[in-house]
């Protein structure tokens, strides 16, 4: 579907009016902590009435997932319309009405690989915020080499019995269901993995939060001890996405999707601020640190251009399919450097770990947290392997 400019302009005005009418002022404030984010799910509670009103208005309009088809709970917006909505929400600083791994990860997988019945059931539940999902990928022995995963589902006819351990499961302790990579055939490394969906309330599932060097985190270890997973949740609703033993295709698809998201293109503008802010606060910059900041600004502003170019190219399908790996590599390495410099700029004040003046050690904790950027969602080393192999086509890579 294509629009005339006039159509889009009209849509923009309608959207603006709708937002004006439905987005409460409290929902136009920046998100301060995890409480301000609404994740949905069986046990969801709202922080306040405004959060509830805003979520419900969006849900009813299909704006929790504006680009999904209407029959799955979305608003069926075209990409240009969705862009207008994003722009208009950004204009008034509207918060996201619903955050969810269902929206970001499982949804796209189901849209690509799911049966009609799976879509009907799960996508609607996700869109309506009725279910909160978590992702079970990594295992202690399978990080970069994800395909070596060991969590095993034994075939018991009408169900599997799953045993094993996952790690880095974000919000596993708060999720209702999990989408999980489970080995169902030990003979075939790649074609022996099933992308399985099951209830986290099942007997034998337990979780344990992970404390990071930066402090508390949403990450958990998740243990499966003889967890029984039925093979079907009803007519046309198998427990797995895609075929049994072909879950690796789904996982790969989602990994690409994830890298595209992580690689995001922000940074340039934000960054150039470190030097100026420091000058304002210190009066006189250490000249060598100033030079480092200057060289960083060059890299950050150039990367921002690349981000813009990448998004432009993605939109029209011109980007190399492996380009997200390059964006993720460069973007995360840059972000780590940014936070190193923020620590240097902040000096001893930035070292404080829990003082009020530092908002509980925010500079230091953020700095430490960024160290995971180049690990999670594929390490920088894996990204470089992929670039070498798929873009530069180097031998045996």
């Amino acid at each position, binding site marked *: 579907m294509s629009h005339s400019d006039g159509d889009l302009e009209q849509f923009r005005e309608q959207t603006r009016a709708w937002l004006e009418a439905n987005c409460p002022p409290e929902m136009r404030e920046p998100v301060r902590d995890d409480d301000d984010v609404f994740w949905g799910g069986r046990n969801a509670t709202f922080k306040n009435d405004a959060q509830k009103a805003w979520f419900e208005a969006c849900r009813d309009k299909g704006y929790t997932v504006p680009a999904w088809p209407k029959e799955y709970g979305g608003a069926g917006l075209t990409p240009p319309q969705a862009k207008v909505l994003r722009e208009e929400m950004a204009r008034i600083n509207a918060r996201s009405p619903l955050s969810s791994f269902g929206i970001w990860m499982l949804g796209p997988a189901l849209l690509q690989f799911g049966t009609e019945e799976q879509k009907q059931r799960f996508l609607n539940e996700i869109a309506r915020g009725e279910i909160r999902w978590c992702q079970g990928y990594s295992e202690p022995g399978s990080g970069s080499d994800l395909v070596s995963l060991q969590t095993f589902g034994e075939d018991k006819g009408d169900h599997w019995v799953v045993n094993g351990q996952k790690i880095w499961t974000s919000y596993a302790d708060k999720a209702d269901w999990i989408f999980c990579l489970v080995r169902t055939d030990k003979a075939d490394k790649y074609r022996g993995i099933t992308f399985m969906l099951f209830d986290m309330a099942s007997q034998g599932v337990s979780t344990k939060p992970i404390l990071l060097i930066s402090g508390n985190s949403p990450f958990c270890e998740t243990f499966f001890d003889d967890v029984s997973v039925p093979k079907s949740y009803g007519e046309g609703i198998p427990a797995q996405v895609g075929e049994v033993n072909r879950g690796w295709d789904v996982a790969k698809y989602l990994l690409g999707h994830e890298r595209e998201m992580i690689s995001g293109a922000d940074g340039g503008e934000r960054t*150039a601020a470190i*030097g*100026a802010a*420091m*000058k304002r606060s210190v009066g006189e*910059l250490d000249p060598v640190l*100033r*030079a480092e*900041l*200057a*060289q960083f*600004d*060059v*890299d950050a*502003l*150039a*990367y921002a*251009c*690349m981000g*813009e*170019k*990448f998004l*432009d*190219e993605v*939109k*029209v399908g*011109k980007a190399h399919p492996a380009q997200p790996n*390059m964006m993720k*590599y*460069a973007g995360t390495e840059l972000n780590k450097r940014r936070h190193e410099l923020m620590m240097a700029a902040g000096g001893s004040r930035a070292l404080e770990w829990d003082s009020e003046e530092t908002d509980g050690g925010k500079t230091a904790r953020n700095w430490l947290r960024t160290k995971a950027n180049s690990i999670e969602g594929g390490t920088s*080393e894996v*990204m*470089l*392997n992929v*670039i*070498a*192999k798929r*873009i*530069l*086509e*180097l*031998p*045996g*890579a």
Partner: protein
Amino acid sequence: MPLYYDDDQAMLADTASQFMGEEGAIGKQLRHWRDRNCKDGFGHGLWKQMAEMGFTGILLPEADGGLGMGHVEAGIVLEEIGRNLTPSPFLTSSVLAASALTEGSDDLRGRWLPGLIAGDSVFAVAIDEGGKHRPERIATRAEKSGNGFRLSGRKDFVVQGASADMLVVAARTSGSDSDADGITLFAVPKDASGMNHEAVRLVDSSMATHTSFDGVELDGDAVIGEVDGGRTILNAMLMAGRVGAAAEGVGVARGAMDMTVDYLKQRKQFGKLIGEFQALQHRAAHLYSEVEIARAAVVKAAQLLDSESERADLMASVAKAKVAKVAGLAVREGVQMHGGIGMTDEYDIGLFMKRERALQEFLGDQYYHAGRVAELNGY
């Protein structure tokens, strides 16, 4: 405006790539003229061919007989020049001098532009004084003398100065050396008496001059724009030149990288293609990533220049600094990964290293421009 090429630009890129790849190839141009110790450092035949392609007037308004295109398009041509290390007066004449001349009077334009468009004339720009680019400080003076001016001083790093039919010279007509105002640009013809070139060959086989002006008498006609008002034109010319040099630098980086990646797929050591060694793979992948980023910055800067954005100045410095850094990396990695043969004159990779060095220095190196980025960002 999206940051990829539109259809017309993509077509231009194809044309330029084919033309430079054939007519501007290293063996046909750079090595040819270098091995003959050519006093110009480039071939007039190719310049004429470039005129036939319309390249020489690419940035000039159609009213003046040019193509009326923008800096994105000029950058497309320059990137191909860079990839092929093609020596030509394009950057100095068609980008830098042309940028200044478009601000000139009808007379001036009429006098100089047709020759440029036809590929008969070559122009140079005389800005630097001393070994490092520092256009904030201009000591060369032009004093009122009758109806005209008397020019005295010395300029360095005047690329193709001795081959040029006309030099755009930045001189001070009032104020002291470091004043922002009081600059005037002059179009000085090659036969001006009192102008003396000391020509030197540079590391990349290009030619430059130390040019001294010993009371050179100039007509009032030689003034480009307003007397004392040259800083604006100079700044615009520098921006155009920096983005252009950055575009050429991206070409140099890509040329060096492509050559090196090819070599990694051919050379065997320890019973393997060296491109199989993970340490080299990661370095090559990092380089690729940096070159892509530098390229995006150049296209963005060119777009901002074309749309006369206020951010163009900042992004021109970002692009120049980023490209200098990345192209430097590309040629160093190139020579190292080629190993011993990369050190020989027989192989082309060393030529990329030489060109990169000269280009990096032209109109400000990575350090100069990083410092400018800091200043423009308020620290």
